[in-house]
């Protein structure tokens, strides 16, 4: 697995090892555990790449060819109906998240055989997704995936302007990159460009993949035209032409030249160098945060002990300061602490704001739809109105959800900042407590906290997994096709032509309008109800994640402060000879942790 990691990551892993070792020497198993968790995250940073595009552009084929596996069944006609997540696992494993047939709020996580995955996601065996699968996941032992890459094959049914296209939008804020597929038979259509323009706003990396270059002699001209269209819209997007059929033949024959012709090596290179490496940088910054935090804590314990040993006269004063620091750390763990209040208030504000936003959006949608129905005859709209409603609703939900994710991130940062304030108070107390020149703390004092990566970065990386963004995406998909009026009774009106009694026609029309309005309102209510439940659950999950992470941090700080205090108290009983040996040991250990810090700063400067 490690052969997939870049030198920077390897170096980061080594540094984390060194930090863990330092913590182990001081019996701080909590900090050792933190270093280990950071290592796992750094090794596979979790890069989600959404594969999007109009249907029949070869999305499933691309995923299959990229990984040399038959994951999604490829069919000329039938399409993928369920979003499929492909990630790393050794040995291969798969599961589906399936709605309970009785209660749509209950989701079952069912393990399935990896070779059966196709039958859960394809229209041929799961028509109209009657199995109610929200999302299918498969893990495969592939080198490309081992660096944390996760591909999402999206259902492209019905075109980008449709509700399915909208539900894909909902997945974009969760993703690190979008691969947008368009085949080489023709240049971008208006709806494709529209999608791209929106995607660029929602996702940091968007690339265009032109498929089926083996079939269209004019593909180079189409590529140039596409580039021209992008330039006209100020979209600076990389474009990779590929041929899946050449790739598959090349793999079958182990033919390197043909593989190069397929364009796939370019695509892999793009994923590695642009997508995975961006995620890697974020992961490195997060790992550095962990190292700093571990090193800071180890250092402050040792510093405090050293300060007292070096200047026993100030022992009483220093001990008092440490007691204050410990009290502060203790307080961090209680429910009354300030960060707790910020978090709880923030979540409840957010919950009600998001709910209110969703409700006012749907209220407006209902009003608009009802006005449309009033203005005409529902019979004429039976085909176009429900998809229109679906699409508008998906749009509203996607925006609402994007809002939720952004504000949740802001909240997490706010809580952590607040928390970080407490933490720096703690260390600041110690710093003032040990103003001894002999400690050579110059380097430490120069180290400005602002130089560090943004607060909240670690929490965000952890939080993304609990977002349920992909789940939301899957859930949105399951609403599509729900909005039907049922067979509208036209009565004999149509056959009677214009001679029908006027009153009777009017009466029937009023009845049809009522029926249609009720149908639409019920659909919107059902969807809103489930989405708002999902949002609440998501926010609860986010709250739990933020709380647990910060609690762990608080408990580490408490241990640190406690240890510093008990060390200080112990030094009262030390003899001079013992103190001398102890000082030498401490200097060595301090030197070790400082070197770890320096290495981390160097790594950050060079590689991120």
């Amino acid at each position, binding site marked *: 697995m490690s052969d997939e990691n870049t030198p920077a990551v390897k170096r980061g892993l080594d540094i984390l090892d060194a930090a863990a070792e330092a913590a182990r020497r001081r019996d701080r198993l909590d900090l050792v555990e933190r270093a280990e968790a950071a290592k796992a995250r750094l090794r596979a940073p979790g890069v989600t790449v959404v594969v999007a595009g109009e249907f029949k552009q070869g999305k499933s084929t691309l995923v299959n060819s990229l990984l040399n596996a038959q994951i999604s069944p490829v069919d000329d006609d039938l399409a993928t109906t369920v979003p499929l997540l492909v990630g790393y696992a050794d040995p291969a494993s798969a599961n589906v998240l399936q709605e309970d047939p009785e209660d749509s709020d209950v989701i079952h996580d069912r393990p399935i055989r990896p070779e059966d995955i196709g039958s859960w996601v394809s229209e041929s065996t799961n028509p109209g997704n009657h199995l109610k699968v929200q999302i299918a996941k498969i893990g495969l032992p592939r080198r490309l995936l081992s660096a944390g890459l996760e591909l999402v094959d999206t259902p492209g049914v019905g075109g980008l302007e449709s509700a399915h296209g909208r539900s894909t939008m909902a997945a974009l804020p969760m993703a690190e990159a979008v691969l947008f597929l368009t085949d080489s038979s023709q240049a971008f259509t*208006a709806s494709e460009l529209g999608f791209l323009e929106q995607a660029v706003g929602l996702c940091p990396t968007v690339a265009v993949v032109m498929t089926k270059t083996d079939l269209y002699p004019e593909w180079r*001209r189409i590529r140039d035209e596409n580039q021209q269209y992008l330039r006209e819209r100020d979209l600076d997007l990389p474009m990779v032409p590929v*041929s899946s*059929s050449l790739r598959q033949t090349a793999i079958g024959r182990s033919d390197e030249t043909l593989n190069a012709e397929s364009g796939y090596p370019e695509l892999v290179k793009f994923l590695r160098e642009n997508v995975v490496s961006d995620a890697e940088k974020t992961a490195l910054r997060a790992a550095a945060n962990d190292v700093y935090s571990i090193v800071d804590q180890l250092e402050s314990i040792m510093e405090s002990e050293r300060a007292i040993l070096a200047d026993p006269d100030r022992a009483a004063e220093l001990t008092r300061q440490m007691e204050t620091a410990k009290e502060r750390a203790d307080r961090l763990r209680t429910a009354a602490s300030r960060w707790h209040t910020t978090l709880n208030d923030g979540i409840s504000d957010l919950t009600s704001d998001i709910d209110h936003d969703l409700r006012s959006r749907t209220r407006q949608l209902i009003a608009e739809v009802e006005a449309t129905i009033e203005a005409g005859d529902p019979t*004429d709209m039976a085909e176009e109105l429900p998809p229109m409603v679906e699409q508008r609703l998906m749009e509203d939900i996607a925006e609402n959800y994007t809002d939720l994710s952004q504000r949740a991130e802001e909240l997490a940062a706010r809580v952590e900042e607040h928390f970080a304030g407490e933490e720096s108070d703690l260390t600041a107390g110690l710093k003032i407590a040990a103003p001894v020149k002999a400690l050579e703390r110059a380097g430490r004092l120069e180290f400005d906290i602002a130089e560090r990566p943004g607060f909240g970065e670690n929490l965000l990386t952890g939080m993304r997994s609990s977002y349920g963004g992909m789940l939301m995406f899957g859930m949105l998909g399951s609403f599509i096709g729900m909005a039907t009026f049922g067979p509208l009774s*036209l009565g004999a009106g149509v*056959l009677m032509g214009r001679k029908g009694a006027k009153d009777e026609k009017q009466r029937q029309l009023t009845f049809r309008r009522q029926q249609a309005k009720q149908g639409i309102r019920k659909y919107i209510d059902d969807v809103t109800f489930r989405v708002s439940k999902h949002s609440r659950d998501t926010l609860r999950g986010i709250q739990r994640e933020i709380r647990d992470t910060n609690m762990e941090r608080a408990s580490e700080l408490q241990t640190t402060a406690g240890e510093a205090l008990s060390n200080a108290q112990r030094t009262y009983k030390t003899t001079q000879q013992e103190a001398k040996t102890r000082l030498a040991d401490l200097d060595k250990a301090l030197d070790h942790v400082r070197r770890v810090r320096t290495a981390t700063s160097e790594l950050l400067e060079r590689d991120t």
Partner: protein
Amino acid sequence: MSLADGARDLLEHARVAYQGHPAEAEVTALATRLNDPLRVAIAGKVKAGKSTLLNALVGERLAPTDASECTRVVTWYRDGVTYRVTLHPMQGEPIPAPFRREDGALDIDLGGRPHTDINEIEVEWPSASLRRMTLIDTPGIDSLSTDISARAEKFLAPEDDVPTAADAVLYLMRHLHAGDVRFLESFHDEEVAQATPINAIAVLSRADEIGVARLDAMASARRIAHRYRGQTKVRRLCQTVLPVAGLLAETAVTLNESEFRRLRQLAALDRDRIDELLLSVDRFVADYPDLEVLPIERSELLDRFGMFGVRLSIALLRQDKVTTASQLAIELAQRSGLNELRSVLSEQFSARADVLKARSVVVALEDLILRSPPAESEALDTALERFQASAHEFAEIRLLNAIRLGSVGFSAEEIEVAERLLGAGGNAVAHRLGVELEVGLDEQRALALELHQRWQRRGESPLSTRDVVEASRILSRTCEGILAGLAAVSR
């Protein structure tokens, strides 16, 4: 009185009513329209292969085709005594335009006018195919230049209830997108007499690409077309869905000897060698000095046949299924789906041309009366109403439409029989009765009698709802018409 006679009679009333009226010329134009061939518009999204299919139907490379959007102006192709191109500008009189043919395709000189100034182009071309139906090439919808897109929509589905200039439409699509359905819907407007799936046929154009140019691609496309045909949404909008490999069809009807010779040379290569060439377009046109067929010639083949056409032709040649150019042409036309499309066109559109044209004329006349009523309109109104009420063909169309909308309470089996009887499977009497053309007259008569009784009983049943009663009445009248026709033939 036949429907065509009835329509002529109606227009005679209109002529009288509009004598000396500013709109007199419009009435005269309607009379001409009734006598002209059926007007069939070819519509669809950008790059759906509209011009290519038009060429295949005409049997000549007439409309320019290339990989970028090329039809920018609505272009009429009609039969003429001589070769002539006329520009109809947005403002002013029609202008004759000079033209050249480049590789067969027309290169029309707009005389420096921007295409936005041209409303329509009219191409008159002596051609047997165009004598049967006038074809109208339209710009693609979902075009990136919105004004081109808007032009197609304006022509095919004008707003404000202005009737369309086409009597029927061939709608080309690559797959069934939501946008395609929306478009087909807009072609049908609310007026009961006009909205009908009877005048639309959907074509899965570029059908070979659905199966990514594999040799069995057309079988795959046929399966897909069959599935679409069964969908209620599609059935409401069009008669049927057919797969056609447009480029292959065009090439099949215009294949020349030198192309055939080159294909034969390629087919004679080693199996491995030819497989290697056919892997991708880049390989197919690459510079191999040892090959007799030059890269430029191979590139031309690719432009004409597409990857599927090249693969298919070479496979046919290697298996000795064809040995001459004309055999290859016949085989390719057959496999492209063109023959099937032609026969459906003649069954569904040509055989019903009178009904479709009469319908267009009635709608146009209604619109004219509304827009600029004649001084004395009562007699014309009465004639119009009488014609609409008495034309059983219109009632049939309305009923077929209602059935497809799912608003008649028939069982699935009844729907099948009723649709067939209304001519959904072909306008010939035998087809309406659900038997082969060869079946004897006596047997046909017996069948018609049986059906007549069946629908009469259904209409009289106290359990039938009002819509079923009404529908059954129309169906039994259809049977009466068939019986009268059969009686006339036997005499």
